[in-house]
């Protein structure tokens, strides 16, 4: 991934890009921008856009040559003027979305910036000077990197991005270009900024939670069952981390031969106790792999299991689960491992953790029905 920061001319180092030949050529167009991208009088000299592989979100065609309005066009006479350039910024350690989920100061800056920039002109023909924040020097030192030029594209009303040596470019509306550059100056994350500013899909698709039956469902008379499912994440990569959290509820509707209500899990009756629910239980995802809670043991099977409720009973047991993957989640401290029924080795809580930001819920439910009063007690199971 490439990322960039505004040029800091005084701090150019041996590893940074050499001065461009164009820097010594300073004719100015009508709007006062020099051929080398130098700003009009009164504007800082660091009005430079960078070598950023920008693409028009809607155009599949790359523009490698700037366009003008014709030979008589004053701007067309300078169809190739370099009006902006920036230097490459050091790569971010993590790609894609910010791990904070949007609440960190950097992300807030991006969001604030985008709100303020909304008032800027939409087209290049109405362009104004870039947001001064765009060119504010940063503490980061420019790394080595080639230049990419950005010039006015009157025909398309935006900034045409052209790469030296055939680097693909495109034309972006002025506001989008400035927003993108500002975002990258703050976040240093190209994929993140492309998605946030341009609405482009990230190169890495979102993980999708999936399940596969690995055992059963098996049954035993009078309400006994066992069903094992294994979680996995489609599109997971080595950088996929977070927690799978499943919300589970259990409903028991069981009676004895006299029609009296039976409470599974109490006294001599077997089965899942409704007192254990609602329950939220969690599996950690590290490097795209799923583990039993936060342990080093690889996840094998999320199991719904119940021993027989008892002879001469009839009824229904419904286990309803909804699992969701929460990328980069820090599991709330309320989740604890009890090594006891019903979650056993999983961290779990009976208090709603009110998690947000999941990749989408996945149903994981089982219903068991039996009649050991007037029937043979055989248990039938349906699963979702």
């Amino acid at each position: 991934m490439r990322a960039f920061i505004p040029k800091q001319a005084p701090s150019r180092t041996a590893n940074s890009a050499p001065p461009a030949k164009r820097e010594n050529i300073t004719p100015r167009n009508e709007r006062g921008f020099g051929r080398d991208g130098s700003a009009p009088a009164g504007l800082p000299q660091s009005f430079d856009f960078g070598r950023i592989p920008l693409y028009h979100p809607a155009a599949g065609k790359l523009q490698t040559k700037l366009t003008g309005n014709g030979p008589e066009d004053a701007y067309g006479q300078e169809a190739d003027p370099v009006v902006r350039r920036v230097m490459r910024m050091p790569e971010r350690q993590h790609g894609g979305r910010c791990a904070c989920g949007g609440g960190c100061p950097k992300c807030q800056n991006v969001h604030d910036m985008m709100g303020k920039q909304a008032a800027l002109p939409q087209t290049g023909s109405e362009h104004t000077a870039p947001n001064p924040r765009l060119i504010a020097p940063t503490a980061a030192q420019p790394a080595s990197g080639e230049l990419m030029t950005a010039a006015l594209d009157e025909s398309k009303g935006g900034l045409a991005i052209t790469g030296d040596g055939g680097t693909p470019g495109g034309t972006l509306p002025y506001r989008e270009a400035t927003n993108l550059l500002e975002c990258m100056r703050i976040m240093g994350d190209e994929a993140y900024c492309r998605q946030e500013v341009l609405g482009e899909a990230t190169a890495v698709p979102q993980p999708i939670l999936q399940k596969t039956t690995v055992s059963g469902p098996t049954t035993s008379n009078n309400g006994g069952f066992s069903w094992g499912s294994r979680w996995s994440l489609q599109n997971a990569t080595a950088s996929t981390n977070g927690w799978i959290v499943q919300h589970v509820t259990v409903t028991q509707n069981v009676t004895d031969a006299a029609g009296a209500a039976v409470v599974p899990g109490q006294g001599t009756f077997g089965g899942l106790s409704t007192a254990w629910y609602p329950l939220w239980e969690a599996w950690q995802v590290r490097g795209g792999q799923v583990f039993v809670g936060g342990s080093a043991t690889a996840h094998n099977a999320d199991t719904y299991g119940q021993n027989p409720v008892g002879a001469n009973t009839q009824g229904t047991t419904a286990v309803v689960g909804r699992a969701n993957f929460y990328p980069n989640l820090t599991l709330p401290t309320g989740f604890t491992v009890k090594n006891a029924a019903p979650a056993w080795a999983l961290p779990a809580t009976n208090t709603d953790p009110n998690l947000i930001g999941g990749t989408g819920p996945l149903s994981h439910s089982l219903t068991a029905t039996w009649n050991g009063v007037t029937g043979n007690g055989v248990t039938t199971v349906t699963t979702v």
Partner: protein
Amino acid sequence: MDANDIIRDPRSGDDAVLDAVSRLRSVATQARVWTDIANDSSYRTFHRDVAIYELFRRHFIKPSTLGETASLLAGGSWLADAVVEKIETISGEIPVAVPAGGASFIVRFAKAPARADAGVYLALDRDLDADLLRDALMSRNKDPGLDKVRIVDFALFPPDVG
């Protein structure tokens, strides 16, 4: 003092025992060292729990038959104070893989004051009751066939005994 001496000394404090255990290499001690402590009620509960934990961690090899395991436990008198529970009601996960037709159990060691629960999950290749498992592990079962039932997987908890 040598780590083995500290571990064998019933007067050693909890921290000293844990420190000594951490200084031992993976199988630096004979299983007998641990069973002697685990089966001796003159040791404090925590000291015995550490010994049981280390016995499984360092010397139990999966799969092992119940007969082999009973020999390893050398009587397993500590099981008289342990809770052996068959895992049948679950909406979660256990850290052992249970084969078809098998059964899973949790053996909770005697609870040491002010210490986290410790124990071991066991997965067997045959379904049997918790009492039968306890008897088999304590070399008290009356059915010789049980000795051939295999423990195919096990997992200790917590991750570290301390």
